[in-house]
Structure formats: structure tokens, C-alpha cells
């Protein structure tokens, strides 16, 4: 038994349960949640160290041998995703201490947050397709709850759209599972890799691949399936926006990478060709859509879409370098994106608004916050030497090497357009003098807000200035993704 694989899932659920016991006692709930998030981080770090030092880890739940039981498996990609999840979980939990008030706590904010973290960790660690569906549902239920927790009008509006499209995507996902099971008779991912090669009707397999692509594409916010995202992500409390923005679409991207590197890799011209077109369209629509908005969080929301395009671009080129870029981009983007949402929350705490027109003067009055925003925003835009620069550089280079010149050019242009949006926020919220006739500052940033934001910004700097070790991990993950036999042998025991 390799218990270390279970801990990232069990600890958040335990934290959720203990939190429920203390419902109504805000002080204790904050403390228990931070403790739970710390333990979760410790477990994920231990798992990451284990994977990094001794290769892929697997565990058969209940000791049922694969492919009959449920397999948990952690390769480098899963380990990276899980540890970033834990970092974001910890940062948002600390931030919540400052933002989440007792009415939301009484409504069950922390249990839902921890269940979300557990569900996301489970989705990253499972080696079974049906189990992945179950984790998706756990994660979705928690996110539905978090999204409408404040019971504001616009939350209901955004929440309804989010729930509708996500339920539809889940139905597509399980339809795909049914069809795949009918063709192969198995749902274990490693076993599927072997079984799909024996399927007679390869056309039907490609059609099933398209169903999976649509299902995960909705979750990931890929073109043309992303409209639910800008409709809902700006409505909940900032802490919730940040965790949803950092994690949920990335689970969709992770599922795409996993399925289209392990199961559907025998008709690349169709599947990965389609992904390439979708990736370029996603990058452009996201970044152009953002240009039209003038609200801090909505600009960031639409930018999520654009950056998902980069990750899918890495997957669709499917060379070791491109996948390295995709994994590195995931790592960098999850941290930066969550942090930008948190910063939007800090600036809203100071000025009482997310509207860029009413914001202003933050650079004069809050130099430190401006610095934190500067690091994250220009990392997102891909300015050297910040983390986003390396991620984009690798992807552009991978595009040039494989002859995908249009995609490589799109990656560069979209990077510039991202800089436009970030400069707009910088100019309006930070550089511009305070709007005339505006009353004094609404509030002071809390130390519990600035602490996680600073740590995430420092992490962004570290990834940017010392990319070596992070690149090595991403390269190892890409190596495993391009050699599915490593995954298959680890799960099935080298049969």
C-alpha cells in the first residue's frame, strides 16, 4: 500500500468534516482550515518529493489488482498539479481569513473549499476514467456551492449558467465513458492505452475522442465552449474567484492532456489537429474579448480562456518540448492567475470597487501592492525574466520546430495583446491619479491578504529567475507523457 497517494485526497475531506463540527465559531474555523491546508500542502509536498526522487507512484485501492480495482497513480504531471493545488489552497485559505465574513462561514464556506481541494486532488491522482468522472462531480458540486454562497443576484445569474453548461459537459463525459467501455471493456487508463489499439472500428474511436474533447473543452474553457466562464467567474467573493480561476479550468486541461497522451493517440492527424485549431482560436478570442472589458476581475476571467489556449497548444503539437512548455505554463499560470485575482481583491478592499474607471492612485498610496501586481501581471504577459516568459518561449520554440508557424506567431501576438490588457489595468488602477470627488479610502489591506499575495508573487519571481529545476520537472513530465509505456508499466506491473 502506497498510502502517500491517498493523503492529498483524505486530508481535505477530514478538514471539511472537522470544520462542519465547528460551524458558527469563526475563529476556530479559520484556524482549523489553515491547519488543514498546511497538512494538505505537507502531504502533497511529500508526494512530490517521492515522485521526484523515485519515479512514478501507484496504488491499487483495496488491493484489487489493476485493471479491476481503482488505481491511483502519480507521475510527474500529477505530482506538479497536486502540489500547485496545495499551494493555491493554502494561499486562498489564508486570504479567506481576511475576506470571508461570518455569514458565509455559517453557510459552509470552508467545508466546500476543502471538498473542492480534495476533489481536484483526486482528479489529478486517479488512474481510472470512471473515478475521474466521480472526482469531477465532487469538484463541481463544491464549486456550485461556492459560486452562489453569497446569494447575490448576479451570483445566481452567473451560477445558473455555470451549472447548466457544466452539467451538460459532465453528461457528455459520461456518454464518452459509456461508448469507450462498450468498445474496450475497460476503464482503467493504462489498460485503455492497450485496449484501444485492438479496437476494429477506429473511426468510432475518433468520434468518441471528439466527445471527450468537447466535454473537457467545456471544463477547460476552450474555444468555442468558453462563454460560461466570463459570465460567472467575476460574481463570487474574490477568494472563490481565485481558487476557481486557478484550479477548475486547469483540471479540464489536465484531463485533456492525460486522455490525449495516453488513450487517444492513434489518430493524431484528426484529434491533435483539431486541438491545434481550437488552441489558436482560444488564445485569440480570449485576449481580444478581454480588451473590451473595464472591470478588474472580468478582464482576468476572459484572460483565463486565452491562457488555456497556450496549454492546449502545447498538447496539440505533442513534441517533448511542446509538452514541457504546456506543463511549465500550467505551473506558472495557476500561481499567477490566482494571485492576480487575489490582488484585485486587495485593491477592491482599498477602493471599494472593481471598476477600472473608479479605481486609481494605487501606485502612489500602495507601492508594495503595485509591485506585487507588476510582478504577476507582467509575468502573465510574458515579460522576461518573469515566469511567463520562459513558458511562452518554450511554446513558441516548439511551434517553430514542428513547423506550426501560424501557431507560434499567434503565441507571440497574443502575448503582446495580453500586455495590452495588463497595461490597461496598470494604467487605470495603479498609475492614474485618484478619480476626482472620490471619498477617502474604504479600507486598509489586511496582513492576512498581503501575506499569501506576497508569497505567490515571490514564487513567480523564483520560477522566473531560477527556471532550471522547474524546467527539469516539466521535462520529466513531458518525457512520461510522450512515453505512455512508463505509465502503463507502472500501473499494470510491467505485464
Amino acid at each position, binding site marked *: 500500500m502506497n498510502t502517500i497517494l491517498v493523503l492529498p485526497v483524505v486530508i481535505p475531506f477530514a478538514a471539511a468534516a472537522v470544520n462542519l463540527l465547528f460551524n458558527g465559531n469563526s475563529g476556530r474555523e479559520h484556524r482549523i482550515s489553515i491547519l488543514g491546508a498546511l497538512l494538505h500542502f505537507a502531504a502533497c509536498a511529500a508526494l512530490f518529493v517521492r515522485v521526484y526522487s523515485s519515479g512514478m507512484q501507484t496504488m491499487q485501492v483495496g488491493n484489487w489488482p489493476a485493471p479491476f480495482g481503482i488505481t491511483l497513480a502519480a507521475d510527474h504531471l500529477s505530482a506538479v498539479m497536486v502540489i500547485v493545488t496545495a499551494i493555491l489552497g493554502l494561499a486562498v485559505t489564508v486570504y479567506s481569513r481576511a475576506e470571508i465574513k461570518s455569514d458565509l462561514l455559517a453557510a459552509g464556506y470552508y467545508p466546500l473549499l476543502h471538498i473542492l481541494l480534495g476533489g481536484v486532488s483526486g482528479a489529478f491522482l486517479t488512474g481510472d476514467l470512471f473515478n475521474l468522472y466521480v472526482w469531477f462531480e465532487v469538484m463541481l458540486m463544491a464549486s456550485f456551492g461556492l459560486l452562489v454562497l453569497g446569494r447575490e*443576484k448576479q451570483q445566481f445569474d452567473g451560477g445558473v449558467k455555470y451549472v447548466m453548461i457544466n452539467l*451538460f459537459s459532465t453528461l457528455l463525459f459520461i456518454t464518452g465513458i*459509456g461508448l469507450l467501455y462498450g468498445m474496450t471493456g475497460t476503464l482503467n487508463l493504462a489498460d485503455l492505452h492497450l485496449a484501444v489499439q485492438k479496437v476494429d472500428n477506429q473511426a468510432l474511436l475518433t468520434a468518441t475522442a471528439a466527445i471527450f474533447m468537447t466535454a473537457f473543452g467545456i471544463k477547460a474553457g476552450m474555444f468555442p465552449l468558453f462563454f460560461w466562464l466570463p459570465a460567472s467567474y467575476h460574481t463570487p467573493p474574490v477568494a472563490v474567484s481565485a481558487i476557481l480561476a486557478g484550479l477548475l479550468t486547469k483540471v479540464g486541461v489536465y484531463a485533456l492532456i492525460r486522455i490525449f497522451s495516453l488513450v487517444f493517440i492513434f489518430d493524431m492527424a484528426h484529434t491533435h489537429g483539431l486541438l491545434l485549431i481550437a488552441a489558436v482560436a482560444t488564445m485569440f478570442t480570449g485576449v481580444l474579448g478581454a480588451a473590451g472589458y473595464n472591470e478588474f476581475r472580468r478582464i482576468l476571467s476572459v484572460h483565463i480562456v486565452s491562457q488555456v489556449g497556450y496549454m492546449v497548444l502545447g498538447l496539440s503539437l505533442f513534441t517533448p518540448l511542446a509538452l514541457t512548455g504546456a506543463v511549465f505554463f500550467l505551473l506558472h499560470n495557476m500561481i499567477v492567475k490566482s494571485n492576480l485575482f487575489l490582488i484585485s481583491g486587495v485593491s477592491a478592499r482599498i477602493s471599494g470597487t472593481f*471598476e477600472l474607471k473608479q479605481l486609481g492612485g494605487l501606485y502612489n498610496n500602495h507601492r508594495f501592492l503595485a509591485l506585487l501586481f507588476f510582478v504577476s501581471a507582467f509575468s502573465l504577459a510574458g515579460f522576461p525574466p518573469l515566469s511567463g516568459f520562459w513558458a511562452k518561449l518554450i511554446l513558441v520554440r516548439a511551434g517553430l520546430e514542428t513547423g506550426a508557424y501560424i501557431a507560434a506567431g499567434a503565441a507571440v501576438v497574443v502575448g503582446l495583446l495580453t500586455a495590452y490588457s495588463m497595461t490597461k489595468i496598470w494604467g487605470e488602477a495603479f498609475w492614474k491619479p485618484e478619480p476626482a470627488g472620490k471619498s477617502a479610502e474604504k479600507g486598509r489591506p489586511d496582513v492576512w491578504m498581503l501575506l499569501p499575495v506576497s508569497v505567490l508573487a515571490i514564487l513567480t519571481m523564483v520560477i522566473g529567475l531560477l527556471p532550471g529545476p522547474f524546467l527539469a520537472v516539466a521535462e520529466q513530465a513531458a518525457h512520461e507523457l510522450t512515453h505512455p509505456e512508463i505509465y502503463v508499466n507502472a500501473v499494470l506491473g510491467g505485464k
Partner: protein
Amino acid sequence: METALAFMCGIIAAASIYLMLSGNLIRFIFGLVLATNAVNLLIFVSGRLAETRPPLIEEDAAVPAKALANALPQALILTAIVIGFALLTFVFILFYRTYQSLGTVDTESMRIAEPGQSDPEAGATPGERDDTSKPAAGEGPA
């Protein structure tokens, strides 16, 4: 039998998509129920219906002597039904609260979170809670 069930899946799925696209939250719920059933039926059929013998292995035997009905799809469907039921309950309550709060079940007139060009201020301010001064959302598309 499989062919008949396959056509049935298709018909139910078509009906459910028609309902889901009709732009009414109540109809969406009915569409969702139908779609869940269509998918469950699909998983059931994909397990093949050739054998009807119950999946029980005789005592002292390690493997069944004769071919048995496939039990796995039923286990999958059972899980899917339970999850689907929980989701359905949540969706009912969410839609009911949405109706209470927004005063409409017509998805076309739900514009609070994404105000149109003519109405840039609505819904943009955070912390706005059941503000009755704004026009009710049920007064037609923006």
C-alpha cells in the same frame, strides 16, 4: 434488442436537448432528467445484453462456469444515478432561489451578471444584494 435501445437513447437525447435549449429553467430541468436517463441507458447497452444469467460464481469455484450478464455497467449506472440525483436536488433549489431572486425563469432575460452595452452599470458593483431599485430582470432581453 440493442438496436431498439440504441434508437431509444437517441430519441430521448434528442428530446432532452430540445428541452434544454428552449430557454426556460423548468424545461431545462426536465431535459436534464431525460438526458441523464439516456446516458444511463447508453452505458447499460454498451455492456451488451446477450447474457441474462445473474453474475454469481458457484461456491468453491474461482471463475464462473458459464457466461454471465455483465454486472459492471449496472454498478456504473448506479453511481451515476446517485450522483445525478444529488445534482438534480441542487439544481432544483438553485433554480428556485434564482426565480425568487431574479423573478424570472427565462434565461434570455437573465442579464444581471453580464449587462448589455446599453446598461453598463447594472450588476457591476460588488456587494449588491437583492437591490430592488434596479429594473426586474424579467422585462425582456436587454
